[in-house]
């Protein structure tokens, strides 16, 4: 009986430690996301209704930066846009209201939550590994570039349906 109690206690401690670790990682990821520290560059002209972009995210752990890439990509398309390169035109953000994120804070909190709706509109476009040239160590942290495809048409429609963005023909 005593032995069983000891084993159970050990498991309890292990589970607690594991929980703290995972929570810590998510917290760090969320912190990076809240700061929205990322850069976007075009990779090519996306297929109909989509953008093909590379999102550079920063984190001390590459895996965290990769996880945040999708979220950063959708955030960037809505709020930042990106400048063009040769053969690929730049794109303006979906909103030109600089205060939209604050005004609709509750909506975007849920939208960008872990497993949130943003995931519907973005896909990682690689063979399962970040390319070597997209995994850079800068000081003590990593700068990770992930190529993603963002379904801009679907994203715009969803935000319009939710009343976050005005429709393209609503202003006339």
């Amino acid at each position, binding site marked *: 009986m005593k032995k069983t109690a000891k084993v159970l206690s050990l498991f309890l401690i292990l589970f607690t430690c594991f929980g703290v670790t995972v929570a810590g990682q998510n917290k760090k990821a969320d912190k990076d996301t809240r700061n929205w520290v990322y850069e976007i560059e075009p*990779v*090519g*002209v*996306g*297929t*109909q209704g*989509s953008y*093909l972009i590379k999102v550079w995210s920063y984190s001390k752990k*590459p895996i965290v930066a990769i996880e945040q890439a999708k979220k950063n990509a959708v955030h960037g398309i809505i709020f930042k846009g990106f400048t063009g390169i040769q*053969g*690929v035109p730049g794109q303006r953000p979906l909103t030109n209201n600089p205060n939209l994120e604050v005004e609709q804070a509750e909506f975007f909190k849920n939208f960008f939550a872990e497993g949130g709706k943003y995931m519907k509109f973005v*896909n990682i*476009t*690689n*063979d*399962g*590994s*970040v*390319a*070597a*040239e*997209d*995994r*850079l*160590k*800068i000081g003590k942290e990593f*700068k*990770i570039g992930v*190529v993603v*495809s963002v379904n801009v048409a679907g994203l715009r429609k969803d935000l319009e349906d939710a009343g976050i963005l005005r429709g393209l023909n609503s202003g006339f």
Partner: protein
Amino acid sequence: MVLFSGLYAQNPTGKVNTKYLRPSITMLFSQPKDADEEVVISKFRNLEVNSKFDNHRIDYPDMKPIEPLNLQKNALIEKYVRGASNPVIAKWWGRDANGSFNYSLVAERGSYTATDADAIISRGSNTSRIEMIGEQLIDKSYILLYEITDLYSMEEYYDRQDALNRKLKNYTPVKRTDEGYNCDYKVYAYKINFNDSVASEFYSRYWVDPKNPDKQKVAAWADATFPVKLIALTGGSVRSAQSKEKSLNTKKKTMRELLEDIPANIQNNAVFELGRRIEDFKLKVTVFKAYPVSAKLGTKEDLYIDQRFYVYEIEQDKSGNQKTNRKGVVRVKTINDNKQVATGSSLPSVFQQVDGGRIYQGMFMESKEDYGLILNIGKNGSSNNAMEGFNIGADFRISRFLKKPGWHLGIDASLRSMKDVYAGDIGTSTRYLISSSELCSGSTYAIAVNLSKESYFTRKGNVYLRPQFGVGLQSYSFKEVGGYEIASDNKDYSWSSLYVPIGIGIGWNITPMFSLEMKPGVFARFAASTDNKEKLIQSAAPVIDNWGFGSIGKMNVGTTNTICLRIRF
């Protein structure tokens, strides 16, 4: 054998080049000077290039021989190669009889060199990424100019050896055991510069297609050449020979067949040497998964078992300048057949880490080929003093031929001197040699040929096990017995026996080049005989028998323990 090589700096940008874009190879030749060279060059012309390159064969006349002492030699070679740049670029763009260009070959080669990641990104894009890759490949066009500097038969080789040896005091003619040829060669590796500005000029001055005909541009093409740069120069000597004894050859070749074997040997040596020196020839890839370490390279890149790669972390400073920091060393363990156009789902090849720290997915891998030669220097201890001493050896990697990782064929030797030792009563069936009251001095050696396999059981591969077995010869040579000096050619006092060593090395890879190894083992030594082929008989063993004389006439066993430094080349 490589005589010399040169290297010129490449890639001065601050970014690390992480992509392997298949270079294309155009082989050109210096005009043959005689019939034998004609055979070699004819065979060479039709040789396929290594599969990690694209064969960019053109129809172009051979270079006229240039005297070695001609001060203008380099300029003349460059002029010749520059002339060849015209048909090279014409082939890239599929120039037809009307002078029109097309994208067929560029697109085809672009598709073949594209990686899984390229294929996946291309599917998500409206622009042709693959065609863009194809255009980048033109800037990876290399012209290899092969020059045979000397081609001579083995008879000529022996004549030259004898001529050299005649200057020595004790001249004896060399044994003329082999027949065949030796060939000395040089390879000049030139790169055609087809960067953005050259490409832009090409399009504006020469581009013609069926929709955009232009007679002036077609005419201008006749004088078009493109900038070339000597990137590396290597040379060496190869031999294609066989024993004159028919019984020693599995298949007796004709002299012409021996000549025709030379081009493949030259090409293998040249590609290996240039592959170590030309940045574009080094395989580059991303670590696809870690543990087991895998990467998307394979037969298309001519990967071979135990080929060495370094794994790097790319570090970037605040100015955006990048540098590589080595994190580990891996060797090819299994090879995937990827000789097809990438679709996005090709399987990776698997690598075994053999040195360094933890490797992560996304790190950068680059080939750093070694010669597969390991030198061992150390000390060998044994229960039998005659088996121990200063230890020296060499292992040659044979895994590439066996297609199994870790296998080496080696030679191991231990040497020791012997001073004032009692050997007991030893003789042969016909005569007495040493009595138990006589002190003996001389030397011993044990030399064995062995087969071993380096095996790794840890993820980082810093530690390895190397089981080995072999067969060898253990020998005693006496200089003095009972106060009497023994002549060095006295065969009665030179004894030897066969032995079979078995051991297991436990090694620690300190760096990619140096390893420390401890190798405990056992041996079985068989009865010894004199160099006169007389069996030795021990009639009274010495009281203290540290040198194995007590069991000289029969099979005996013992233990060994070797500690050595292994230096990998």
